[in-house]
């Protein structure tokens, strides 16, 4: 008697180590990749949103990052989550680099900045708007550290692991980011 194939309950598979899921994907079970998407999309989306300030851009970067990860899945060495994070973080930085070029050309043409349209002002809360604007003025390293600490809620140890730097350096970045943000916002929110 041949037993009918049974599906593994999704919740059981979700707790499977990433390495096992990756093996399944590489063995041809493309649908198993959905487990990785489900597992990591929320923190990565928050990171992209915090870095870019744009939900649409964050969605695009998230999509591209997962697609890149899928295409290069056989090349993963070490921790998948750290590898995936680097793909997304670099996508954010590439976008920022491009938008900065665009922003510079706007300034040369004396056009308004890209994040201050009236519609956006109507849609967002004032604090949300102000924090977004303030974050945009920070160097990427400080913004990244602040977002990872205060938006993503990561520990310094986890951040150091993902960014391949020291806890001390990250504390310094977060502290500088806080002080810069406070300088930019405290007149209104003191």
């Amino acid at each position: 008697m041949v037993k009918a194939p049974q599906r593994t309950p999704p919740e059981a598979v979700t707790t499977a180590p990433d390495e096992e899921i990756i093996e399944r994907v590489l063995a041809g079970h493309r649908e198993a990749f959905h487990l990785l998407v489900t597992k990591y999309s929320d923190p990565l989306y928050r990171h992209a949103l915090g870095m870019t300030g744009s939900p649409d851009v964050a969605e695009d970067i998230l999509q591209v990052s997962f697609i890149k990860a899928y295409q290069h899945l056989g090349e993963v060495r070490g921790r998948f989550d750290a590898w995936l994070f680097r793909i997304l973080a670099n996508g954010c930085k590439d976008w920022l680099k491009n938008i900065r070029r665009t922003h510079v050309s706007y300034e040369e043409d004396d056009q308004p900045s890209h994040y201050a349209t009236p519609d956006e002002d109507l849609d967002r809360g004032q604090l949300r708007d102000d924090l977004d604007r303030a974050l945009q003025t920070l160097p990427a390293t400080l913004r990244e550290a602040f977002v990872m600490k205060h938006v993503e809620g990561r520990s310094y140890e986890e951040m150091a692991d993902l960014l391949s730097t020291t806890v001390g350096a990250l504390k310094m970045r977060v502290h500088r980011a806080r002080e810069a943000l406070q300088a930019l916002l405290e007149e209104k929110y003191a």
Partner: protein
Amino acid sequence: MKHEDLNSHKTPNSAPEQAAAGAPDLTTPEREIPVVPAPAPVHRWLDGESVQDADLAKPDAEKHVKFWAKLKNETDRRHRMKTPIGLDAIIMEKLEPPVAKDE
């Protein structure tokens, strides 16, 4: 105040260690940003460490605590944000079918 750059790599298979060792990131220039130095207990409190209430109630710390208590509402809201519904399905649809192996 000078800020350090973080390296950026486009290669998706770069290990984190490799990613930190490449060309300088050009995302944002080093720039001067005015700062409001906060007392050390305030940073420790914001870092999630245990701090004496008395240290946060001191005059030099009070305004920082008030400010960050307001900001915390917004950062907490962002922390609860989820990926838009349906995005996972869109990602899965965009994946190329696996290359069939030769029989």
